[in-house]
């Protein structure tokens, strides 16, 4: 029986082993939604297309599969833009399917028409505009292939409504993939790998710097570190690629990295970068980054090598393939170097402290519910470190954490110890506030047997708070931990340090009452105001369905240590306030 373009699309998604699609219907994609009606493909209806994009992204990060999102033409598609840019920056495999107006209406400023192909060109790995129903199947398969191979990334497929409605005449599957211009190098160059191995054996102070590209090479990363006894620092994207409690784990490096990681970078003589891209939040001042080290740079994307720092040994290839070749049976010991790191003396550099009670916006009468004090005079609060470490140990570090962006994200990165890869779901490159809630939904659907805990802030969550409806509608058991300091904490922290405490527009006040709001979405809630509430906190985290937990946090609570933007990694504010390192946490850390 002849099939329409939309029916071919849905059956192709099934052929490609797609389990979930996230989306939102509209005029131009009505044929797709009609084909989905009664299909076994599970569609998750979010409450905003941006939510659908982030959910597909979170699903992809947690499961390792391609995330799929569907949106209609015009505003539906433009609402995906942030989600695509976010996935592109963090190399997340995603396929976005958008409807386009009928081909005859293109270019005529038709209703809900936008040049989505043009708009998304710089924020996708590749994109397509399909006007011919006979190409849908082949292009969709090509899109999945491109999204998931090499350095992964989002691919957008824009399809005109007539192509979706027309009957497909010839079998699309017979069309061969035409991808002469797309090559994936998996094998690293043997000579470069040999040089790298030699350098590792000669090095006195080697250090592994693992990024998001190491997530799927975690077993070999562990072997590399253990066999050669090399300490490891991970980027924000690399969290979980190496066990969080391993004694060789120095923690995260960079702007809010641990002093041990940052000083190890500055003192190592060999830096082995695996699937990391020397981002400015990681390196600080580029010309002072790892000054004493030769750099071995392993990456699947040739363009990353030499982009920000010159590599002494460039290795283009897949992390697993390269590490398999690199590791041999030699056992090395770097006891002295590891002891040196553990006993680093931190520079005692302090930053400006917050100026209490000087929040400009707080004096504005309409900003608050009358009965509540302004945030800078809030009395009851809990140290975010306490709740996050408690959550971490409650699940014996076997949890999946999704975060939003800002202080909540950095505290989650510092205090929750992630033991498994693909278990720290966070917007690294783009830094998208509002990412967390929908991403947590996707992650929970991608790994249904594990518990997803969202760590968010009162600023971020309000950027996609409508997705509480999605959580409620599908009874997705995400636990939301909202660290509510009633200010835009990270920006405020910068205002404290760099703008002389002039708190311009960073006070969100006590609006709304989050627990009441969660209840309005029929999600149970808990407010944690002090240490007395922690028992209830634990119960809520272990509850069966979704739970919304609001934790009162002091607005002056800051993220330390901190390297000022553009400074060298040696120049840390409040290094002594770093989270406890793995080797001091001991074995009874539960």
């Amino acid at each position, binding site marked *: 029986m002849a099939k329409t373009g939309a029916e071919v699309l849905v059956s192709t998604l099934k052929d490609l082993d797609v389990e979930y699609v996230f989306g939102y219907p509209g005029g131009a994609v009505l044929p797709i939604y009609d084909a989905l009606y009664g299909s076994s493909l599970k569609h998750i209806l979010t409450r905003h297309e941006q939510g659908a994009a982030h959910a597909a992204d979170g699903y992809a990060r947690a499961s390792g599969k391609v995330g799929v999102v569907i949106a209609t033409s015009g505003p539906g598609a433009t609402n995906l833009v942030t989600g695509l840019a976010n996935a592109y920056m963090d190399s997340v495999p995603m396929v976005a399917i958008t409807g386009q107006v009928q081909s005859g209406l293109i270019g005529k400023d038709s209703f809900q028409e936008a040049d989505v192909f043009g708009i998304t060109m710089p924020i996708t*790995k*590749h994109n397509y505009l399909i006007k011919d129903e006979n190409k849908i199947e082949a292009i969709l398969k090509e899109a999945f292939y491109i999204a998931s191979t090499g350095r992964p990334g989002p691919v957008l497929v824009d399809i005109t409504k007539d192509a979706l409605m027309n009957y497909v005449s010839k079998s699309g599957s017979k069309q061969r993939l035409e991808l*002469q211009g797309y090559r994936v190098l998996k094998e690293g160059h043997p000579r470069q790998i040999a040089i790298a191995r030699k350098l590792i054996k000669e090095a006195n102070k080697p250090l592994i710097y693992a990024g998001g590209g190491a997530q799927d090479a975690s077993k070999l990363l562990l072997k590399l570190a253990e066999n050669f006894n090399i300490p490891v620092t991970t980027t924000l994207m690399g969290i979980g690629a190496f066990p969080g409690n391993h004694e060789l784990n120095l923690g995260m490096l960079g702007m809010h990295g641990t002093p041990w990681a940052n000083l190890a970078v500055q003192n190592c003589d060999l830096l082995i970068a695996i699937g990391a891209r020397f981002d400015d939040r990681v390196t600080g001042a580029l010309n002072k980054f790892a000054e004493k080290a030769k750099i071995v740079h392993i990456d699947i994307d040739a363009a990353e090598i030499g982009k920000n720092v010159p590599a002494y040994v460039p290795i283009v290839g897949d992390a697993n393939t390269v590490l398999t070749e690199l590791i041999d049976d030699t056992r090395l010991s770097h006891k002295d170097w590891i002891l040196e790191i553990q006993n680093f003396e931190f520079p005692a550099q302090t930053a400006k402290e917050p100026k209490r009670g000087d929040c400009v916006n707080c004096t504005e009468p309409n900003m608050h519910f009358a009965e509540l004090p302004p945030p800078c005079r809030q009395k009851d609060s809990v140290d975010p470190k306490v709740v996050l470490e408690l959550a971490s140990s409650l699940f014996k570090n076997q949890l999946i954490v999704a975060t939003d962006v800002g202080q909540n994200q950095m505290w989650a990165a510092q205090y929750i110890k992630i033991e498994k890869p693909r278990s720290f779901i966070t917007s690294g490159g783009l830094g998208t506030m509002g990412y967390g809630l929908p991403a947590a939904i996707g992650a929970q659907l991608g790994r249904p047997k594990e518990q997803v805990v969202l760590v968010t802030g009162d600023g971020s969550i309000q950027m996609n708070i409508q997705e509480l409806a999605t959580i409620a509608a599908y009874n997705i058991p995400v636990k939301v931990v909202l660290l509510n300091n009633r200010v835009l904490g990270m920006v405020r922290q910068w205002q404290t340090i760099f703008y002389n405490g002039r708190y311009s527009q960073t006070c969100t006040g006590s609006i709304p009452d989050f627990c009441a709001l969660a209840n309005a979405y029929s999600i149970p809630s808990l407010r944690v105001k002090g240490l007395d509430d922690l028992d209830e906190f634990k119960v809520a985290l272990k509850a069966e369905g979704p739970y919304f937990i609001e934790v009162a946090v002091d607005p002056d609570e800051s993220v330390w240590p901190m390297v000022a933007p553009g400074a060298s990694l040696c120049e840390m504010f409040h290094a002594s306030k770093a989270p406890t390192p793995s080797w001091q946490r001991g074995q009874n850390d539960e």
Partner: protein
Amino acid sequence: MMSDAIKLEKVILAVLVRNEPGVLSRVTGLFTRRGYNIHSLAVGPTEDIRVSRITIVIEEAEERLEQVEKQLHKLVDVLKIVNLTNAQRVERELALIQVNGEKRSDILQIVDIFRAKIVDVSPREVMVEVTGDTEKIDALIQMLDGYGISEIVRTGKIALARSNQ
């Protein structure tokens, strides 16, 4: 953006791309986004109708040139990049120049010397067509400037490596 201290290199790249809608946008968009400077650009079909050839002359600091090529390679539609800068090559540009025709015989002489052509004549002006490398066209324009040039159009540079055989 570029400080005077950074030495800019002029490089000719021949970029072979899939002849697909939007491919030129992808290439120029990449240059804009990454802040690379395009000096000139010429696009046209090749001996294979599925393939187009984009000849790009760029001016970049030497250490960034490798990045330009690598980033171009990441575009799925880019099939091949040939750096012609140091190759034995033939390169051409074409220009049409509208010049005041009062001293027509002088102009004719100059046109002759440059092996250019008069392609249009009107009572007041003559239109000159010239092909050659950048320097030759620059020189002709300089010569004609004194007579009063009203309009100039120049193509981007095209280049082809000489055959080894």
